């Protein structure tokens, strides 16, 4: 069945998008609670987002 790999890639990208959205949202919450720690939170947020993004791209290239 051709085209099924694209569906799989789409599912993974949806998952990655949700994940990055959650990371961003949680980081916003954390910054709102402790604005003085915003630098550290941003760094951790970017690293986590980058790791998920890597999976998303891996899926795109596998498809």
């Amino acid at each position, binding site marked *: 069945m051709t085209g099924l790999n694209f569906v799989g890639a789409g599912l993974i990208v949806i998952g990655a998008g949700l994940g990055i959205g959650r990371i961003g949202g949680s980081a916003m919450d954390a910054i709102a609670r402790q604005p003085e720690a915003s*630098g550290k939170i941003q*760094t951790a947020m*970017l*690293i986590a987002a*980058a*790791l998920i*993004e*890597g999976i998303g*791209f*891996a899926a*795109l*290239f596998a498809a």
Partner: protein
Amino acid sequence: MYRNNLIKILVLLLFIVTSSVTAQDYTEENLPAGKGIKEEIKEYINHHLLDSYDFSLFSYTNDAGEHVYIGAPLPVILIDGGLKVFSSSKFHHGETLAEVDGNYYKVFHNKIYKTDAAGTISLDEHEHPTNIKPLDFSITKNVMVIFLVGLLMFVIFSRMAKSYKKNGLMPKGFGRVLEPLVLFIRDDIAIPNIGEKKYKKYMSYLLTVFFFVWIINLLGLTPLGVNVTNNIAVTFALALITYLLTTFTANKNYWKHIFWMPGVPTPMKIILAPIELLGTIIKPFSLMIRLYANITAGHIVLMSIIGLMFIFKSWIGSPLSFGLAFALALLELLVAALQAYIFTMLSALYFGMAVEEHDDHH
């Protein structure tokens, strides 16, 4: 205040001009008969993503029906029974054969193959050419840009270093822009991730990789049509350096945590060892994919939206896609810096893991 506004307007104008120059690439290309504009745009994007043997800015068809290329040829260096060096103008942009010392070479799908005098390329059942492929060390467009950026960085940073010697702690000129960036890499990337004691050893690599990736990403957004970081070989080389540095500067603790994880039961240790070992390779691999995929995706999306202008050809659609392309170009400016930052940051993180000292018992 007045001067500030003037600079802002100038920068805005520069963006608009560069975007419209990128757009001109399409209009100047007269469409060959029987080919739709969609195929033309697709072809153009594919062509833009590839490396090439000559540095051509744009091409157009003149009144006499000839293709005119604006740009410069670059040297081709082949090893095929001895060193062969010739100008890529001999290929006439892939349209003709190049004859060197009685051998014939042809560009086929962006690779150089050895052919007979008629220039036949024989294909096997998978559509792959069976011709001999000589070892290719050509100075292609990407290689040239890498050399240029290397030279540029050498000049900028050696001048900056000299200015410290002359003026004491106050940098002069362009150094004032660079000093905060260098300090940012030291204070916000290297020291927190690697540690106060050992960061100095890695600073030279982190600074080099940050500025190299950043400058090259920014050059990819100019109408020069260069894009080096969307060549996976380039990002592979960068990731390989990170991998080698991590592997060869790692201390005993790092290897112990890979092969014999302390604090877990023995059967678990045996399961964990291959996983951890695989992890050391996946880390630089993800570095490679991330940089390559981000820049490639950005270029494809940006060029497709610029291409939409020529598909719509209406007073509503074209300005809309122009505005969208403009906004995306600004986003790409951010991505260019962000990817350089993330590459440097994760490299520093991996170095930090390699030299970490564990006194605590798990």
